[in-house]
């Protein structure tokens, strides 16, 4: 291990150090001035971001005896993750203060979750990956239970924990099979071993692979391992849902790309079928069940499942174009998802949780601006141009079609039409229905500004999506 190793891992090291500082400093902050913890957290994120940008890798670096990798993919995912954790905490602040949940733990756990994500994103061995995944997962379990007096929160945290533990067990079991067959845990060495010994590509490895895909599907919330997702989305307090719905998807994407493309790229024929089944099921189940929801958090939960289907179909192609499309889709999806949950938070106030679709009734009369913003976000999620969600879908469909699956492409667009219905329903409630509830939206100016920029981004990115697609294509070339 050399100094280069530590420099490349500086963002994680810095973040860990800063978490400890915030954790200790928070002990000396009383409840009235808890806002200090918030600003310390934002400062910690800003410093981490700065470290990330100054240590940006120009080429693929494999460090710490091959268990850690720093490459353009990890860079963009980490930058986005840090940014969206910051945005999630920003949206959360007013809500937590209004609901007497403004505790230091929320921020600390948020930061620990981010650390876990960053470790996952940069993992180059199955063990590092597992380490990051558990750091993230444990933070999330605790975050879901942050409102410990709330029965639904506690229940969903319990569900999440038990199911998560089972999935982790399955993943670990799969890892042990892969290790048993190939004799290594590092992705590049697995790939080399496979290339050198084609006879390894046989049943025992496929058996292990199946369990790895179970782990991936669980992390993403893909059908049939999606059971936890709607319950957790609904049961957790909205800021926590926002947190879970945004940045961790980036880590899950890194997990998928590293394991399947970096490590087991030679087994594309084997895993492509499994991923396709999971993805198609996610598309159908997610979109169809979302129609029946009356709780917006649950509805967005099922819509997430459908979007995961799109992401996985990009990965399914197994080529640069598909990977770039999956990356583009994930990055743009979380912009819209963060904004949508941000507006759900905005509608909540002291003692009132805006979580039913009907709470959106007449929003256009109460706040035309945020109704317009929510409309942008919904059309983006539905994949209507000129919003960015359309280009995400366009790229995935293009990748699938050029890989020679016209049937899948048609299925994807038909599923989006089904999906359009429930997004339109939100707009219908906001614009077409009257409301008696004319309460003014309570939030501070900085949150409103960030939320507006976040929502306008789906339009701005949709008008000039070129640069992001170029970036994603270049990054995809660096994934092996």
């Amino acid at each position: 291990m050399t100094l280069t190793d530590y420099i490349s891992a500086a963002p994680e090291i810095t973040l860990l150090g800063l978490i400890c500082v915030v954790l200790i400093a928070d002990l000396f902050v009383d409840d009235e001035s808890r806002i200090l913890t918030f600003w310390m957290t934002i400062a910690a994120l800003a410093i981490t971001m700065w470290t990330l940008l100054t240590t940006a890798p120009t080429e693929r670096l494999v460090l710490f005896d091959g268990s850690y990798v720093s490459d353009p993919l990890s860079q963009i995912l980490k930058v986005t993750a840090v940014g969206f954790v910051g945005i999630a905490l920003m949206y959360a602040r007013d809500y937590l203060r209004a609901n007497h949940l403004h505790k230091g733990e929320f921020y600390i756990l948020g930061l620990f979750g981010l650390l876990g994500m960053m470790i996952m994103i940069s993992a180059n061995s199955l063990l590092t990956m597992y380490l990051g995944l558990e750091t993230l997962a444990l933070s999330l379990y605790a975050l879901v239970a942050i409102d410990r007096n709330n029965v639904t929160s506690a229940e969903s945290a319990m569900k999440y924990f038990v199911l998560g533990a089972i999935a982790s067990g399955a993943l670990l079991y799969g890892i042990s099979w892969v290790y048993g067959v190939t004799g290594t845990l590092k992705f590049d060495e697995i790939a080399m071993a496979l290339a050198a010994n084609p006879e390894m590509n046989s049943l025992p490895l496929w058996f292990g692979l199946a369990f790895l895909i179970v782990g991936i599907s669980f992390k993403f919330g893909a059908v049939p391992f999606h059971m936890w997702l709607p319950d957790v989305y609904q049961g957790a307090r909205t800021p926590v849902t926002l947190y879970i719905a945004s940045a961790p998807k980036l880590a899950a994407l890194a997990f998928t790309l590293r394991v399947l493309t970096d490590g087991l790229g030679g087994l594309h024929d084997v895993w492509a079928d499994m991923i396709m089944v999971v993805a198609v099921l996610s598309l159908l189940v997610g979109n169809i069940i979302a129609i029946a929801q009356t709780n917006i958090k649950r509805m967005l939960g099922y819509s997430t499942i459908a979007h995961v289907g799109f992401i996985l179909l990009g990965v399914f192609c197994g080529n640069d174009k598909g990977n770039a499309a999956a990356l583009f889709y994930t990055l743009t999806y979380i912009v819209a998802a963060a904004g949508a949950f941000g507006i759900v938070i905005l509608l909540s106030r002291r003692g009132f949780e805006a979580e039913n679709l009907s709470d959106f009734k007449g929003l256009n009369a109460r706040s035309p601006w945020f109704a317009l913003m929510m409309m942008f976000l919904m059309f983006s999620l539905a994949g209507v141009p000129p919003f960015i969600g359309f280009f995400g879908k366009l790229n995935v469909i293009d990748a699938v079609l050029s890989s020679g699956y016209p049937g899948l492409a048609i299925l994807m667009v038909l599923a989006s039409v089904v999906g359009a219905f429930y997004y339109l329903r939100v707009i219908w409630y906001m614009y077409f229905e009257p409301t008696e509830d004319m309460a003014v939206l309570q939030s501070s100016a900085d949150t409103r500004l960030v939320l507006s920029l976040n929502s306008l981004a789906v339009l701005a990115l949709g008008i000039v999506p070129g640069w992001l697609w170029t970036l994603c294509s270049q990054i995809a070339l660096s994934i092996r």
Partner: protein
Amino acid sequence: MDFSQYLLSILIWLPVIGGVMLLVAGDGGDARSSKASTMRIIALGMSLLTFVLSIALYKWFDNAETGMQFIERYSWIPALNAYYYLGIDGISAPLILLTTFITPLVVLTSWDVIKVRPAQFFAAFLILEGLMIGVFSALDGLLFYVFWEAMLVPMFLIIGVWGGERRIYATLKFFLYTFLGSVLMLVAFIYLYGQTGSFDMFGWMNLPIGLTAQKFIFIAFLLAFAVKVPMWPVHTWLPDAHVEAPTGGSVILAAIMLKMGGYGFLRLSLPMVPDGSAYFSGLVIALSLIAIVYIGFVALMQKDMKKLIAYSSIAHMGFVTLGFFLLWSIQSGSSGAGLGMTGGMVQMVSHGLISGAMFLCVGVLYDRVHSRQIADYGGVANTMPVFAAFMVLFSMANAGLPGTSGFVGEFMVIIASFKANFWFAFLAASTLVLGAAYTLWMVKRVVYGEVANDKVAELEDLNMREFVVLAVLAVAVLVIGLWPAPLVDMMNVTIDQLIQQIGQSKL
């Protein structure tokens, strides 16, 4: 300053910018406030300015030019090889003029009728206008699709927010129907993109494609355009949308949005997949004839005026698709093919004016009586003589009376279908009877006879604003009916070239 090279962009973005301004400024939630009046004036000013600029487009348009004019081409998404690529020819120019002509009239009609959030209402129309001009001038597939879909958003809100009782059902049906139709077109676009590596429509036109692929692409296009036109049997969204939409929305829907389907056939289906079009031309002709005859009978039985006009729109748009697809049934060497296609185009423009005017007439009555039922009226001519004159004129035009624009297009298509097949012409010509029957029967029941009830007795005749709108449309209908040459000259060269292009097999 020579701004002709940016003229199309100006026409697209000027109304959009105007719309965004209205959205940002808002109306303070009160339709009677002075702020709301300012917003109305801005909306009218923007739409009039766009119209004036489009006259420049007409002046500078070169009828003899075979290629595209007013071309603008800038790199948009280099990674996808997509361009911001605009240009017009003899097919798109008349439709753009129609759009810029109708929009100020719609703004005027909705002047003080809209009581709820007028700023948002006018903003939606202005943005819609820009996007519609974008559809007619985009030459890049991706750009075309973006305009095509984005257009649904303002229309969805117009029907949903300012519509009638069942507006939510109608607007959801409208959105999902058209969305379903167009996503398959997107798959076809991406397939073509995969073949040529760019979204350039001319690249797609010159690309050789196998017959099987052509058939699939044609079906994907057909679904998108047939829903828009709309053709039987995917027309069911239209009566609902028309009935529930506010008057202005109905006018735009009938006058311009339906034309997108016809335009799509000419711009995409025919030149890109000529062999697929030839293969399915019989199907399209059959569906068009069903629309003309069967929907004509359906219109006859309507009790709701808006529904009746909506069904008559479907029947009239049947002429458009019939005219476009007669090409393969006509003996080569005869001039019928061009006649059919030109007839279809003239019919599109004329139907835009007439159906728009008919919906405005119903709107005038609805604003006063708040009913669209034919049975609630009778003897309107006694209390509203000026209005009655207009209504009768437009109804005659709708029935295809010689001297009005409705006659020109239908007559051309019927002549062309005679050259193709006697029975096509026989069925198509039945519209002369059916169209007259359903329109004039409605006029008889609404306009003539004794004053039916107290509400009709209290009716006041047209105010200045309504008079201006209807008079302008009446002049347009008569001018095209008596002297269609400028319109036909505009599209002749382009249509000849199009027919030549379709004639070359791409197999």
